[in-house]
Structure formats: C-alpha cells, structure tokens
C-alpha cells in the first residue's frame, strides 16, 4: 500500500481565524470574507496571487460558488469538500496536494460553518431519503457508549473515569480562558463539571463540545518558495487520512475502547513524518475533543499513552498546558467551539501560532520541540474518518 506523504514539500505561509462564537450578526459570507482577508494579510500576498481554493463546509452550501461569490474571485478554481467534522482538514489536504502536484503555485484552504441559523440544538445532519432504519441517536450518545466499555475492559472504577473525563473538560476550559478567539473563556471548576446534568450516558453538559459559527483559512505554497512570503513558515510533515467502513457497527470484535481508524491514521502519519516517539517529539497536539471521553481514547490511539492508562495520565496532568505534552492548548472543540467546516483549520492555526512563538504570554508553550500534531475526526465510534497532520517549523 502506497502512502508516500509529501514531507517538507509544502509550507503554510499564512493563516487566519475568526473567533468562534454564536455570530448572530455574521452570516456565512461574512465569516468567509473575514477569515480570507486575515489570511491574505498574514501571508502578505495580494488576493489574486492565490491560484486555487478549497472550501471546507459540511452544510454551509454546495459548490465552490459558495466561496467564489462572497470573495468575488475572478475565474479561479474552487472546490467544495466535506468529510464530516474533518472537513476543514480535508480542505487543507487537497490544497496541499494540488500545490505538490505542480498544478498551482499558491492555494488557499478555507473552512467555515454557520451552525446557529437553524434554531436547533447541536449538530443535525439531514440524511438523504432512506428506509428509516438508521440510527437517530445524537453524537453524544454514540460516543458515550465508549465509557462503560472502557471502564469494564481496563477495570477503571466509574468514579475515576468520570474524574478523568471531567479533568479533560477542566483543562480545555482553562486553556480556552487564555484564548481571545475561544467561544467559552471562563475557567470551569471540576465540581461544576461533574455536577452538570447528564446529556447521554455518563456524559454531562460539560463533557460535550458546543457548536459555534466561525471560519479559518490557510495559504500553502511549495516549501522552496516559502521564504518569499515569511521567514517563519510551517512545513507539512505528514497528512494522513483514513475513512472507516462502518465495520465497528457490524463486527462484534470491535470493543468500543479505541478508534481503529485513528490508530491506523496515526501509524501512517508518524511514518510519513519519520516520528518514532510521538510523546517526546511533539511539542503540542490539537485533537478532536468533541466529547471528553473521545479525547481520553485519542491519547491512546495517537500513542501518547499506553492502552488503558490515558485516564491516569490525564489525572497526572500530563496533557495540561504546562504538562509534558500539552493537548488542546487553545481550548479545543470544547472551549474554542466547533464550526464543523472550520475546526480542522483552527487546529492548524494554533500550531501556526505556537510554533512561531505567537500564542501570547498566557498560553505560549516554551519548548525546543519543533513539531505539532493536529487530529480531526468525523463520524462515530465504529464508523469514523480520521485525519492527522504533522507540522513543523524546521525542514528535515
């Protein structure tokens, strides 16, 4: 199987990110314009210098015209992509491959979502007409099924597991409180988290990421051209994607304590980047904490923790902002918010700020390590897509 990767061939030379919140006063078009202009500015390039665009939006609109119209692009190629909650990452992935192919010199990936115009709570997809036998469960309920399975398999007391997942929420709110772009910017106490009403299974209000409106964008070019635009580019070391086939829902050997798509994606990503010991080589990780229990399992699937021990590492503070491997230093989905199409790019935006020393004194990670990992997933346990990028501030 060939997944060669494009390590050190492509650089990110500019990024933009709106704040994520219920933008009652901004529509999809406004978010697109704001993120794109911030991104052009960040790269220091004229708008017309971008040759091609990839728009990531799950439900914001069909066709590349959804981007071309608000930006009034002039005869540019624009592709709209969607891959569940990994949509934003998918946009970047395509833009990177397009430039690596030699077809274009400069490309932009922009992710955007307006989740708050429907009037409904949570993320709601409208499936195509079907026979009515599909699941109608919320995402929270689907992910909540991991908790009893994990507790049983690894002999973790239910109280300890609740403590560990509450700690994830606590950590991400602590970090988000230090991020001017985040949706929720207050620290939240462990007691508040643990006492919040249950939404699904053992997941309470604070175990579930909210949804928000927002946009984020990145401009990429060939690595050897990066110096024309910035002296602090980020080089793409790995882009890995795995689309699950739903086997976890039909195969009794899947035990709901891991996400095999992510585990496979991580192996590929680390191989592309040449990483052998992730938890010591990576400076920070932005991961898909749609639910606190998800982040816990991700620590194991991404090889940051041994199987069955992530709950302990979390309680030990290993992944705190000042821990050995900061996870979600910008607050994560939990605190930053989750406009579906934008989240993958928002993760890369934090890597961009952190690796360039621009995260600000409240949450800047001081480290010699030069690599960041972003992980973005979509779907549910048993039926997932997984994306991982590894970005670095240095070539080689």
């Amino acid at each position, binding site marked *: 199987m060939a997944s060669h990767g494009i390590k050190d061939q492509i650089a990110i030379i500019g990024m933009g990110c709106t704040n994520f919140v219920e933008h009652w006063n901004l529509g999809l078009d406004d978010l697109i314009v704001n993120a794109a202009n911030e991104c052009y500015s960040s790269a220091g390039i004229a708008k017309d210098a971008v040759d091609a665009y990839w728009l990531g939006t799950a439900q914001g609109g069909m066709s590349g015209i959804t981007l071309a119209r608000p930006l009034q692009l002039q005869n540019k190629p624009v592709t709209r992509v969607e891959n569940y909650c990994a949509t934003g990452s998918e946009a970047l992935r395509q833009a990177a491959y397009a430039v690596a192919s030699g077809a274009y010199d400069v490309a932009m990936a922009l992710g955007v979502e307006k989740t708050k115009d*429907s*009037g*409904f*709570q*949570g993320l*709601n997809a*409208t*499936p195509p*007409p*079907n*026979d*009515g*036998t599909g*699941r*109608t*469960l*919320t995402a*929270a*309920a*689907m992910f*909540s*099924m*991991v908790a*009893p*399975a994990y507790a*049983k398999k690894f002999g973790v007391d239910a109280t300890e597991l609740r403590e560990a997942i509450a700690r994830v929420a606590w950590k991400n709110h602590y970090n988000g409180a230090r991020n001017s772009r985040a949706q929720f910017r207050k620290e939240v106490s462990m007691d508040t988290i643990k006492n919040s009403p*249950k*939404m*699904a*299974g053992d997941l309470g209000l604070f175990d579930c990421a909210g949804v928000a409106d927002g946009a984020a964008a990145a401009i990429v070019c060939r690595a050897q051209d990066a110096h024309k635009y910035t002296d602090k580019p980020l080089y793409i070391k790995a882009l890995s994607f795995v689309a699950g*086939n739903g*086997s976890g*829902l*039909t*195969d*009794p050997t*899947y*035990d*709901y304590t891991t996400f095999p798509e992510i585990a496979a994606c991580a192996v590929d990503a680390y191989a592309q980047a040449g990483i052998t010991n992730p938890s010591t080589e990576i400076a920070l990780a932005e991961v898909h904490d749609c639910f606190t229990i998800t982040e816990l399992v991700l620590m194991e699937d991404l090889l940051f923790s041994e199987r069955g021990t992530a709950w302990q590492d979390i309680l030990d503070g290993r992944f705190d902002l000042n821990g050995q491997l900061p996870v979600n230093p910008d607050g994560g989905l939990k605190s930053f918010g989750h406009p579906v199409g934008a989240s993958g790019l928002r993760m890369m935006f934090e890597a961009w700020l952190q690796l360039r020393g621009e995260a600000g004194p409240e949450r800047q990670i001081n480290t010699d390590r030069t690599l960041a990992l972003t992980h973005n997933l979509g779907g549910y346990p*048993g039926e997932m897509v997984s994306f991982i990028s590894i970005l670095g501030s240095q070539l080689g």
Partner: protein
Amino acid sequence: MAVEAGRIALRHTSAIPTQLLFASVSPTYADKTNATVVHAALRLDDTALAIDLGSSVRSAMGGLILALQSQGVSVVASADIRTGLAGSSEEANGGDAAAAFVIGDDTHAPLAAEFIGAASATEEFIDRWRAPGTQRTKTWDEKFSEITYLPLGQRAWTQALQDAGIQASDVSLVAVSSPSARISSTVAAKLGAAKVLDNLSSVIGLTGAAQPGLLLALLLEQSEPGQIVALVSLTDGADVLLFRTTKHLPQAQPDTTVAQQLTRGAPVSYGRFLSWRTMLAIEPPRRPEPQRVSATASARSENWKFGFVGSRDTTTGAVHLPPLRVSADGQRTDNMQDAPMADVLGTIATFTVDRLAYSPSPPIVFAVVDFDGGGRFPIELCDIDAEEIAIGGRVRMTFRRLSVTDDIPNYFWKATLVRAS
C-alpha cells in the same frame, strides 16, 4: 403486537401460511392495507394473500370464522389498543393485546384443536359507536346491551351445540367476549358449560378486536387434550365457535403464555401513559423532527426493515447487519445469503441513554447488540427502564413502530430484555 403474536404462533407449527387476515379497530392505515405490514414482518411467502378485515371488533371473530371456512393455511391476527377520554371508565377498563392463530387442516400440519361446530346471530343495533380515526367509543346504555345480547347469545349457543352434536355440559371451558365484563359473566353463567374462563379483564382489560382471540388463547392454554372448549363473542350479534383439543395441543402451546406475559409488566406514570396514547403532547427537543421514510428505499429494503433479515457471507459465514453486497473484508461481491435474525438472541456489548435525541417516548435507551452465532447491530431498546441496562444483558428482537411522519409510520425492530418469568 399482531406481528409479535404471529411470530409466537408460527414458531409452533410447521404449516406454511397461504393467507393472512388482520383485524384492528385502530389500524395505522386507511385505504392502504395494514396486513401487508404483518405479512412482511412474518416473512410470509409472496404468494400468500394478506388482507385487512375492517375496523370493527366483530371483524376479529369474523376472521376466525372465515379462516375455518377457507382452504389453505390462514394466519388470523387481531390487535387493538383501547383507551378513552381521560378519567373515563372506558380508559380504565380498556387494555391492549393481540392474538394470532394458524388455521388449516391436518394435511398441512397436526391440529392442536379441531373445529367441531359454529353458529352466528346478527342484529343491527347501536349499543356502542365510534367515529373513524377517533380514540373513544361511546356507549348507549349497558342495560340495553344486556337485554339485547343475552337472547342473541343463547340462540347462537344452542345452534352451535346442535351443529357440533354435543350438549352444553360437554363443553369443559367456555369464554365469553363482549364490550362489557358484566355482560360477559352474566351470559356465561347461563350457558350451562362445565366451567367459565376467567377473562382476566380486571388485569388485562377489555381488548376490543383482540378480545376473542385473547380468550381463545387462554382457553387453549388452560385445556388438556381431548376437551371441548367454546368461544362466544357478543358483538353486534353473537358468534360461537366450538373446538375439541387434540393430543397435539401440548407441543402447540406458545413459549410465552398469557400468564407469563402478565408477570413482565412495569408501572407507567399516567402522564407517560397519556403521551403514549397521543392524548398529551410532550415538549420535543430543539432538534429537527424525523424525516418521513422513503417509500422507494423501504420497498428495496423490505426484508431488512420489516423482516430483520441481514446477509451472511457464504464463504466466511460472517453476518452483516444491515445486509451488504460486499463482504466485510472487502473481498467478495454478491456472495451472500439471507440471514434471518429476528428470532436470534443477542448480548449487550455496550450501551447508553440518550436524553437529547427526538423520541416519541424519551429518553432513548440504546445498546450495541452482539447476536448469538455472529452479527452485531446497534439498536434502540424498548420496554426497559434506563437503570436495568448493563453490559452482558440478554435481548431478543421485537417489531415496533419508531415514529410517524407525514402519516407514514416508520416500522423497524427494537431489542428488549429477555425476562425470566
């Protein structure tokens, strides 16, 4: 409920049905046939007729009579949900039930009970009435009902005994079905049979179209081989059916008797009861309502949706739920055979309770079920309190209506705990 009763009945006979007759006072559809839903869920042959008998209580008894007169093998299924205005005696006395019988002759399969005689009496009178599509039945005057039904019942009874060539005292057990428990016992006392069946109406309630079948089921459950049992139905006339049980009766007894089912209930709050009756609207979540089911997609997946039939890879034996054309390992296409899973028990691998999702009766209790012999399907559980669910719990499949959108019901399967009786 008719499907559940039909499945129980069909498990205990080798006869292959050639027609299905269905009766309910409160069917899901008008114009469109309801029996075809039952036909699909019971996985009857394409060549079998499936028709509705009409939305009267007497239709159910009529179904038995017609089936006994028919050639071939009939499944007669009746089901009803009885309620009334809040606080009414109709509501308090009503019950929900379904009954199903497989009727044929001994060339099809051994007979559990042999039909030996019948009679009917018909008269037009308004003892009760209901407007189509409404939930309550109005009654005129119970005294009027009693003085009308008594002579009708006695006339039909006498004629049926003559038809069978027996005396009243030859009947070991008689059951009387009528719109009133009092009238039933008054008439039963005057028939002269050896014993009168306890209708259990104070426990189950009066179950409308399901009542005659329910009582016939009780008669057969409580009889020994070689006895004569009688079913008398007093509804818009009187109908009497006489049967003699055979030595094959014991092996035809259902695996789940009425008595066993009565031990498995649980209390339901009045508010929840009213919401189930659609008499009380509960606040829905701020989520989109379910979309209506696609008729074309449902037609393509009839076996899966109505029959819970998956596919089994003929090379590896792996069960795929829902059925797939391509095997789970991606290697083979169209290498599958049908895997009927409705009667297979399963074990809970993990579970949750969803307090956010839309449901006609929230919260949704949901589990990943691993089936004996292979196959896994995540599915909603029913007839369960959230506290009862645990990894390792044993479940069986049951046919349910998940929701109704744009007047189209969404039928599918749910799992329910296997409960000891």
